[in-house]
């Protein structure tokens, strides 16, 4: 059973290598060991070890900062930006209270979660947001007074929308997950998180 | 049978300092298992410490005491080389007794 899984994954990996061989080097030895070292569990299948172009590039410390790597990053950013969809009803700003709950939650998508578990945004894991929450990470920048300091312009709103949807549209090797791209958050959830940052009533802007 | 405790007793200036670690899950009765069933409460209820056949401390624990309970108490009336005996009884009636020599 297990070996069946990894053979499946290895098949996926191999086909990916063929598809993107021109894009970057994929380390076959690493892929092989990973295929042997992991097992599917719950909703986390071995397919999750298959890298897309962006992940493969950013995993290669040397390549990503080389001249060719930087050019590749710029190209990936362009593609990512073009793929972001604006809100279907044209409304960007949702409910900041719901946004705060999403920002607090680090749940979803792990092998202990059910397929229908609502994902959180895990925002506080890396960002300071509402200053009342003292338990916040610092991998990402502080977002205190986000709207107050940047303003509530259309430009800032669209930029923020894009950044939550796909941070890699601005920095291909950003540490921030691609919430829209991988449908980690729904459109409504993204609106609500955006509201947490850009609603003048949000505690972030008090 | 219940797992052993770790008991340390040190004497300084006539006061014996006793540090105890007990191995116990201390189930609150609030947790649910993976199938959604409530796990019944199960906790150490009584702790007693004796030195030279005399009780020097007694305590009662509720479910809010942390898993693998830690207890630090002090008493007078024993010297280096004396034996300190610690016992607990839990809410299911299981018990454990361990000893340490005062150093």
């Amino acid at each position: 059973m297990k070996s069946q899984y990894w053979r499946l994954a290895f098949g996926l990996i191999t086909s990916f290598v063929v598809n993107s061989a021109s894009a970057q080097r994929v380390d076959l030895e690493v892929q092989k060991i990973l295929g042997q070292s992991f097992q599917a569990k719950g909703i986390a299948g071995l397919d999750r070890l298959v890298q897309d172009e962006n992940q493969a590039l950013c995993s290669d410390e040397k390549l990503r900062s080389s001249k060719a790597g930087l050019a590749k990053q710029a190209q990936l950013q362009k593609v990512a930006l073009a793929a972001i969809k604006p809100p279907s009803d044209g409304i960007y700003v949702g409910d900041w209270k719901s946004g705060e709950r999403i920002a607090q939650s680090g749940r979803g998508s792990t092998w202990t979660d059910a397929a229908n578990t609502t994902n959180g945004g895990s925002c506080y894991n890396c960002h300071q947001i509402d200053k009342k929450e003292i338990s916040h990470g610092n991998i990402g920048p502080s977002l205190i007074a986000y709207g107050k300091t940047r303003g509530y312009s259309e430009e800032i709103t669209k930029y923020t929308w894009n950044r939550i949807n796909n941070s890699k549209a601005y920095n291909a090797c950003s540490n921030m997950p691609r919430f829209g791209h991988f449908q980690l958050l729904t459109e409504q959830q993204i609106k609500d998180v955006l509201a947490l940052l850009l609603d003048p009533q949000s505690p972030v802007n008090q | 049978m219940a797992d052993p405790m770790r008991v340390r007793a040190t004497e300084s200036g006539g006061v014996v300092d006793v540090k105890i670690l007990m191995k116990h899950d201390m189930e609150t009765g609030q947790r649910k298992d993976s199938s959604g069933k409530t796990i019944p409460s199960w906790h150490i209820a009584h702790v007693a410490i004796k030195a030279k056949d005399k009780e020097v401390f007694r305590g009662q624990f509720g479910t809010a005491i942390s898993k693998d309970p830690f207890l630090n108490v002090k008493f007078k009336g024993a010297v280096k080389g004396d034996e300190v005996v610690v016992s607990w009884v839990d809410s299911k009636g299981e018990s454990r007794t361990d000893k340490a020599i005062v150093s």
Partner: protein
Amino acid sequence: MNKQRRSVVQITALIGLMVTTGLISQSQAQDWNKAAFDGKSLDDVMKALGASGFEKSNAITLNAPDIAENGAVVPVGVVTSLKATQMAILVEKNPSALAAQFFFPEGAQPFVTTRVKMAQSSNVYGLVKADGKWFVASKEVKVTLGGCGG
């Protein structure tokens, strides 16, 4: 009620001395202060302990952190210059407020440290009974969310 309880404690202590294996006699084991441990609110517990008329006291030091990295283990210590015969640790916002109760026979020092679970940020109370009266010190402990939260 209080007087009655104390006499029960004394009798069971005597029985305890006669038991050679283990230190806790059967009757002692049955003497668990159910009413106090079952009490939900601070008031319930204070009543069950007979401590409703408690006084605040500077002679009690409650050692607990301002912020706990995890609510599953919050160190709490009580030490006093009073002649304590009993102590108790209460967490106001826990489902049942009483965490532990301690008895100090002759020779015991009025000092105890243990670790409690806290469901959320709350006031923590250290109670001391001395000369038949209850005294209290309290402090707020913030419980933080930690880790990746998955």
